[in-house]
């Protein structure tokens, strides 16, 4: 029983990270209607930025905050420079741009930092908590994730800017008619997604270590989480993230073994697409013909 509880708790910790990244995917999906394949590499790159700052002697939390701000700016720049020109382009063009971004970020990270695996420090103490049930880092990661989620919820639900971003996601034409600068809202969405991804990267890096491909598995779980919750539902993405995290850990420990853990994500993706394409909380779009 204790082993099971241990797996569930540690699943919640990684699940929170999947949830953040899934949320970043949903945010970009809502404004562009595409899955940002480069979301994971963007997060990886942010984590390297944090690593550079920490190595230069900066305190962990200062590096954390600076990385979030810097990632926000980089995310906005990516939207302005790379995504804006292909806004009206066919689906394939946009996907190629996303994949290009993925490859570029991956190569640039490898070029600057080499492909050698690096350790990334955790800001939390090394001792386990709750009588060894989970590590302090896992507990801390859950805490950080929850803070991020609450901040985002407050932002979207209770601020005029958050309301404007929700408006743009569902009706850009009407948004212009009430004076919202739609282009800037899309850029803001990319900035926020990049910032959330940065948090996810810095929380997962002490667990999976730092290398240019560190996020590929994590992104796959985030895809599964976003689809499970419903790709157009931010709340769903969060629930999906925690579900996938727990499922992955419990299945890995007791059913299929750690080697096949990633398969869980793929099975979830396929099962959702087959059985309930709109996800648990997604909007079922019915069109009259």
């Amino acid at each position, binding site marked *: 029983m204790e082993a099971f509880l241990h797996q569930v708790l540690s699943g919640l910790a990684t699940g929170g990270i999947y949830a953040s990244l899934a949320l970043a995917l949903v945010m970009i999906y809502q404004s562009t209607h595409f899955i940002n394949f480069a979301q994971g590499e963007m997060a990886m790159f942010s984590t390297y930025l944090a690593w550079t700052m920490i190595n230069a002697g900066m305190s962990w939390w200062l590096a954390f905050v600076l990385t979030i701000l810097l990632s926000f700016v980089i995310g906005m720049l990516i939207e302005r420079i790379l995504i804006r020109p292909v806004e009206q382009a066919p689906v394939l063009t946009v996907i190629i741009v996303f994949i290009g971004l993925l490859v570029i970020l991956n190569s640039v990270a490898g070029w600057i930092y080499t492909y050698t695996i690096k350790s990334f420090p955790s800001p939390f103490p090394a001792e386990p908590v709750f009588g060894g049930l989970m590590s302090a880092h896992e507990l801390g990661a859950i805490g950080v994730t929850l803070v991020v989620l609450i901040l985002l919820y407050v932002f979207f639900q209770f601020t005029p800017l958050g*309301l*404007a971003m929700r*408006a743009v996601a569902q*009706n850009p*034409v*009407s948004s*212009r*008619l*009430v*004076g919202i600068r739609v282009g800037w809202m899309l850029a803001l969405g990319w900035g926020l997604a990049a910032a959330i991804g940065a948090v996810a990267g810095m929380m997962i890096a002490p667990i999976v270590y730092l290398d240019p491909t560190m996020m590929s598995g994590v992104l796959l779980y985030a895809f599964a989480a976003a689809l499970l919750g419903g790709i157009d539902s931010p709340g769903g993405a969060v629930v999906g993230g925690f579900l996938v995290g727990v499922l992955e850990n419990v299945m890995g420990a007791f059913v299929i073994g750690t080697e096949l853990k990633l398969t869980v994500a793929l099975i979830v993706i396929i099962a959702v697409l087959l059985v309930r394409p709109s996800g648990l909380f997604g909007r079922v779009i019915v069109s009259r013909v």
Partner: protein
Amino acid sequence: MDASVRGCLAIPARGRMMAALLEVSRLQAGYGAFSVLHGISFAVQDGGITALLGANGAGKTTTLRAVCGMVKAAGSVVLAGAQIAGRSTEDIVRRGVAHVPDGRGTFLHLTTEENLRLGAYTRRDRADVAGDLERCYTYFPRLEERRAQQAGTLSGGEQQMLAIARALMLRPRLLLLDEPSFGLAPLVVQEIFRIMQRIRQEQQVGILLVEQNASLALEVADHAYLLETGRVVLGGRADEVGRNEAVRKSYLGY
């Protein structure tokens, strides 16, 4: 255009009509290579209602879209003395032009109140916004009953009220209304037009009204223009336009 029609055209003469809130001249617009408006001119007085009449495809909706920068247009659009042609929709809205679009443009998955708050998005006077919200609810009590409800669950008439109220939340100088009677029951239409006149009296707002129901439009408007395939073929004071033989036969049906 023939000479008999030219007689009652009310294209504003320079220097005389200083009160015009909106002056449109030689406006051309279209979609891609397809041209819809071929140089139309008309005016909306400050605090007045100007109606654009015409059959389907005459260019009424395109005119509204051209005025607020939603389609590419050439020509002159002067709002309160400032040239706004060629500016972005967001900028034109910030100058006080509120558009109730064709199809109402409701934010379906937001609540009624969120829709209204979005109408005031560009305003910085937060305290007054709260007062205007209450005033919108006095114009349209039905919206207050549904304030926390998803706007997509509102009936067609309620969504039309919501669209007008959302536009009013901007405290516009110019209100563009695209077919407010479309698809609504006669009683609801009456209610909406009654409120429109009340708004005109209570707030100094000019209204440019596009309407297929010509008798209804001529009842509330002070000026009217008749569009045919992208040209103004008749224009002037609403009562004069209403007495025109051709308008009576083709649009009023008597």
